[in-house]
């Protein structure tokens, strides 16, 4: 079986202007939402208390809210998690609430709201911790960028390195934009997913670059855009199959992994989709735009000293 038997090269580079324009537009929209709506940071970053309580029957959220309100815990957010039997309660760190005992207090208040209460999990993060996490997260992204830039600059050439990083940072910003737009919770696991995507999409760019380099070395004729078109077309099949397979695994996590892996899988899905797009339609036009040429990748043969007239 074969899905892709493409006889002639698809002229991707001639769409360069359009695709770059689309990228720029999505990028700007993503940045706009990121700035206007901001990220819905999880308790791990903001500090606060997050509890999950389950009962053997569905319970009324309003009753629980009322109970907490009556006891001065009016800033609590009460939601169902997964099913009406599971209740998730979120409390910000505020003044006297900034203590570990708050979860015991809440549980004591609400344990009679339904049959067979069970405290499934508690997460309390003090205000001291969140700041470190944000700094560490940014450091990690910076480290990845520098590492990948360095590696690609050595293995390929600086134009390739910069094109790959720009294309993939664009993916990261778009994932963040989606999380901001849909107000999805941004947790530490999502951060892990984003960094994994960063590595994974660069990997995608590398496959295309590798082919471009090979074409530069092995083919004599053809302009740079033609050779790039050929490289993209040749790796097209692999791109779709690989990403399809990875996505199958990610979807499996989305469906079977439960709430803890939900946003993780979602971030990966967005990342994989835009990863394909950006490495094919953003990184390669950037390469042309940076003026990559055959000479950049092929070691110059030593010039023989010849007599000149």
């Amino acid at each position, binding site marked *: 079986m074969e899905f892709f038997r493409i006889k002639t090269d698809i002229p991707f580079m001639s769409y360069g202007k359009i695709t770059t324009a689309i990228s720029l537009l999505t990028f700007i929209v993503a940045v706009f939402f990121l700035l206007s709506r901001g990220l819905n940071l999880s308790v791990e970053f903001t500090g606060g208390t997050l509890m999950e309580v389950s009962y053997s029957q569905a319970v009324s959220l309003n009753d629980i809210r009322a109970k907490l309100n009556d006891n001065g815990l009016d800033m609590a957010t009460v939601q169902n998690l997964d099913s009406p039997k599971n209740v998730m309660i979120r409390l910000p760190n505020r003044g006297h609430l900034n203590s570990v005992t708050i979860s015991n207090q809440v549980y004591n208040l609400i344990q009679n709201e339904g049959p067979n209460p069970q*405290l499934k999990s508690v997460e309390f993060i003090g205000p001291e911790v969140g700041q470190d996490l944000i700094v*560490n997260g940014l450091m990690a992204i910076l480290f990845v960028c520098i590492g990948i830039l360095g590696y690609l600059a050595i293995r390929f050439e600086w134009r390739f390195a910069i094109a790959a990083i720009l294309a993939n940072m664009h993916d990261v910003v778009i994932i963040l934009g989606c999380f901001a737009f849909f107000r999805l919770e941004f947790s530490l696991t999502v951060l892990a997913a984003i*960094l994994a995507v960063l590595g994974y999409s*660069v990997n995608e760019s590398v496959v295309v670059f590798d082919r471009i380099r090979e074409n530069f070395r092995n083919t004599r004729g053809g302009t740079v855009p033609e050779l790039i078109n050929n490289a993209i077309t040749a790796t097209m099949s692999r791109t779709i199959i690989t990403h399809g*397979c990875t996505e*199958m695994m990610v979807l*499996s996590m989305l469906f079977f992994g439960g709430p803890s*892996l939900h946003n*993780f899988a979602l971030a990966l899905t967005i990342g994989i989709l835009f990863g394909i797009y950006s490495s094919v339609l953003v990184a390669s036009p950037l390469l042309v735009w940076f003026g990559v040429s055959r000479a950049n990748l092929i070691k110059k043969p030593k010039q023989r000293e010849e007599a000149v007239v």
Partner: protein
Amino acid sequence: MHKYSSWKYIIIVMAVIISLIYAIPNFYGEVPAVQISSTHANNRVDTNTLAALEASLTNNDLTPLGEVFDGKTLKLKFADTDTQLRARDFIQAQLGENYVVALNLMPSGPAWLSKINANPMFLGLDLRGGVHFLLEIDMNQALKKTLDKYASDIKRDLRNNQIRYGNVIVGQNSLTVQFRDADTLQQALNQLHKDLPDIQLNDDGNGGLQAIISEMQMQKIKEAAVKQNILILHNRVNELGVAEPIIQQQGNERIMVELPGVQDTARAKDILGRTATLEVRMVDDDPTDVANALAGSVSSDKELLVDTSAKNGSSKILVNRDVELTGDNITDAQPGFDENGGAAVNIRLDGVGAAIFKQVTQENIGKRMAMVLVDNNKGQVVTAPVIRSEIGGGQVQISGAMNVEEANDVALLLRSGSLSAPMNMIEERTVGPSLGKENISKGFHSVLWGFVAIAVFIIIYYQVFGVISIICLAVNLLLLIAALSMLQATLTLPGIAAIALALGMAIDSNVLINERIREELRNNKKPHIAIESGYTHAFATIFDSNVTTLIAGLALLAFGSGPVKGFAVVHCLGILTSMFSAVLVSRGIVAVLYANRRIKKLYI
């Protein structure tokens, strides 16, 4: 195509066999066990304890299924949780308070697997349930206590030398003492330099004296505070009876405590978060009183406490309930040496403490006084020296019958009851046991169904080479599980997600190879040549793309904390195992199938 060299086959076969052995324990599951360890260096768990315990357990129908003794802790396996619980209570009653008797789980695989260290993966809190705490030491309080101590020392010294002083102001990290005139100031400075050389004193230029805590001293105070708090936490965790607690310093002023399997989290929080106090009380050594008390009748104004300084570790001591002095009056306790060169503990008291101490010692010469550490309403005697003479001046030395290590311990315990820096819990993560089980099953199903979907698709799409790819993927999974088990890395839910993702990404290498072979065939290459050049061409790409993914993985490992770290470990390992399986293993299988044979058509 050349035949694959035999050493490569040997590597592949060895890797698969070893991985199988180390992956197997994960499928056996675990059996309930009771773990016994000692809280005190003086009463170790040894083979005698083991023999005695076994005999009495067998007599009570609680015969263990097996036991493992590693020289420090003893683990006994039991058939079910019911027997385990009964055995725990029985053993605790039998051994007494000086042993930690905790519930645990042990791998149920055959014993030879454990002997070669083939144990199941270590499950993180989110998979097995338990509590995680991050405590931060309040360094401002620690500094303030140090300054308060300085202040009282300075005041006392000045008073003793009849130097008049004005206000004493304790600030953020310095303190100032004011004087009437420059002469008095100079006099005070000279006197204090002589008597209290530890304190750095300067003329502050405004007619006062200033003591500043230097950067180095600050560092020392911090280190001491962390060390002391870790010791206190160890004591408290022992009391909780947790099988595999982790207590670690994290950063400069934080301590991480992880208690897997703890169910009653409210109690755990309570015990870890409380403050210990130190009390000085008189000992009743009257033989009849002691005999009566040991027989069970203690008069209401006395209580029988455990003497931790006793050599056998379990002797009791009868102590008055009246408290003569509390830890608040103790400003310092340090290990040191007496005039004969023996180990000693030097205690310093504040003004009020010194006065009371003088009176108490004067009235009780020849008797013993007990230093009692009260933790969670439970007292234990840290040390109970005999009073030889009246002691005034607030400098107390306890010496005799202890070695340097014991003096260190006593000093630490005394300080922990008096001037330990308070700790605040800044992070808590509690996972109930039911959620842990749910997480395991969810993670397992994610990996399973993702794998099945990929397998079905790839086999249909690439036929024979698809089957080879999936065998490689399965080997990759096996290697990854074996590597995680061998390293005893902690598996968490994000870790399982990383396993799933590693598999989803690892298929890339196989796809690259298969696509390349197809392409070569399309260019009318002969099958053997197509395979050969397919692998050669794909390798460079596989290598480059895996290195870039690995860079991201290493960044996660370096900067990640908590759940991210668990993800990163598996992610990085997964990249390495996938390179091995995609390149070496798949090539090997292809060589077995096609080498030295005429191939009419490749099914790809």
